[in-house]
């Protein structure tokens, strides 16, 4: 059996998650323009990492478990990355209505 984090560590992680939640709420009130979303996503990713490492015990699991956990993030990157090929290039070609003389 893989070992578990100590109760003290769990408590620290829990407090960190609460602090990050408060930070998310606070950041929402700071006008950062488009960076508001980026900051919120960054904090959310940090919280997810803490949950995966400690509450899901990946930190203390075998390398095989690490490989599968990393694979999950790789697949998320595929989802976001290939979707982005659409969103970032969708406006490169204007619609035919932009060329009424054709």
């Amino acid at each position, binding site marked *: 059996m893989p070992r578990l984090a100590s109760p003290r560590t769990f408590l620290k992680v829990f407090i960190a998650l609460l602090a990050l939640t408060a930070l998310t709420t606070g950041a929402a009130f700071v006008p950062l323009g488009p960076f508001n979303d980026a900051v919120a996503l960054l904090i959310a990713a940090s919280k997810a990492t803490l949950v995966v490492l400690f509450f899901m015990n990946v930190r203390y699991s075998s390398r095989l478990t690490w490989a599968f956990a990393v694979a999950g993030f790789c697949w998320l990157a*595929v*989802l976001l990355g*290939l979707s982005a090929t*659409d969103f970032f290039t969708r406006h*490169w*070609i204007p619609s035919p209505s932009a060329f009424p003389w054709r």
Partner: protein
Amino acid sequence: MSTHPHLHRDDPKDYLHCEYGIRSWLFTTDHKRIAILYLVSITLMFFVGGAFATLVRLELITPQSDLLQPETYNRMFTMHGIVMVWFFLIPSIPAVLGNFLIPMMVGARDLAFPRINLLSWWLFTASGVFVLITIFIGGVDTGWTFYTPFSTFYSNSYAVAAALAIFINGFSTILTGLNFIVTVHTMRAPGMTWLRLPLFVWSNYATAVIMVLATPVLAITLLLVGIERVFRVGIFDPALGGDPILFQHLFWFYSHPAVYIMILPGMGVVSELVTAFSRKRIFGYHFVAFASMAIALFGFLVWGHHLFVSGQSLYAGLVFSLLSYLVAVPSAIKVFNWTATLYKGSVLLATPMLYALAFIGLFTMGGLTGLFVAALGVDVHVHDTYFVVAHFHYIMVGGMVTAYMGGLHFWWPKISGRMYPEGWAKIAAGLIFFGFNLTFFPQFVLGYLGMPRRYATYPPEFQVWNVLSTAGASILAVGYVVPLFYLFWSMRYGKIAPRNPWRASGLEWEEADSPPIKHNFEEVPTVTKEAYHYHEGVRLG
């Protein structure tokens, strides 16, 4: 008691007779009994989905809408798709044959998590009940793809109920996939190295990886559809600031790999059948095994080819079109290697082999027409026409259902302890092959001529092709009903099966009885040979 040493029909230790009563089935943790539970459940759902298909084909005999109102027709093809995809095709080979065989093939007594396996079937049953309720209260008319904003705003049908059924069903799939992955990694018998694994295990392992990585995205997507429809939170609806193409990206990120959930296990079955009935080791074991993993990987990179005409960026379309051609490479490797295995083999045309040969031809047609629709220009012409309907039915029915039928016949002696009647089985296989082609080949022509899918009416010049298609569907239906009867019949009256009636290689044939004992083997086998060791001779009993 039987006097033959390998005929264990009355042996109280076999898994069918070791316990009695309904509770011993509904709460069993034996992977073989759970496979039987799945077999019964998905067979029921297959005929429910088939009933919807029958109504669709009957309506399309005439150009005008006469048997069904267009609104009802929309519900029929939607429910056909939902039931067939999530309640038959996705669980078919993995949950029935995979559940039954994977532990035996790797030399284990059960799957890694037997209780989770039972939970998986109960979740499947719960989702099946939800989908049946959805049908009875009126069904859903969005198409099985739930495209937004129709599904989240305009549709006056039970989209949330159907989405909930699929949401629950997804957890069943994820748990099955998880169980297979852990079993293959941790429960292999001594000597069963990765490169001695039967190709059925490799293909189901690749499938399980897709199940675990893709299905959560579907769950999230359907949840978002529910949130937008019920709470009007703008996610996909442009009127609320959402992006409808985002839905298509998320949906197809799951649903294109789901096509490989449906076809990869079928490829695994065909690898087993081709070797067993050619009496040869498979040509290029490593290539066939790694091609499964390559298909699983590439399958995640191509989803955008479903969005070529949806408003997706042309540049993204170029990338997805190029990536789509990649999938053809490992698929072709498999087809060539099966064909090469047949070369100079001692081919026996028993029923499972007929299905395997049918699979190779039909899958190849489905795959090659997939290249048509992966091309940006051609797809503009055939998108949302019957060409696409024919293409994916050649993969899913001509491929997966044919492989499932082949596998079911091949392992039926192991599952039931009885032989099926070969003559009737060959007649049914012939009916299915002929009926299938008569149903779906005309649809290629219809689609190329421009008949769109998902309409209850069509121009009169298309009628002859539609009548041919419906005639084929009626033959296909007979072809599927006949095995239902003779397999039932064989459970009581079929010839008692010996341990290894096909003289096939593999632990399930060489080391386990027909039907197997509760824990599969008297003692854990030690593997000393490669898979498909036909050149060295196989153990018959």
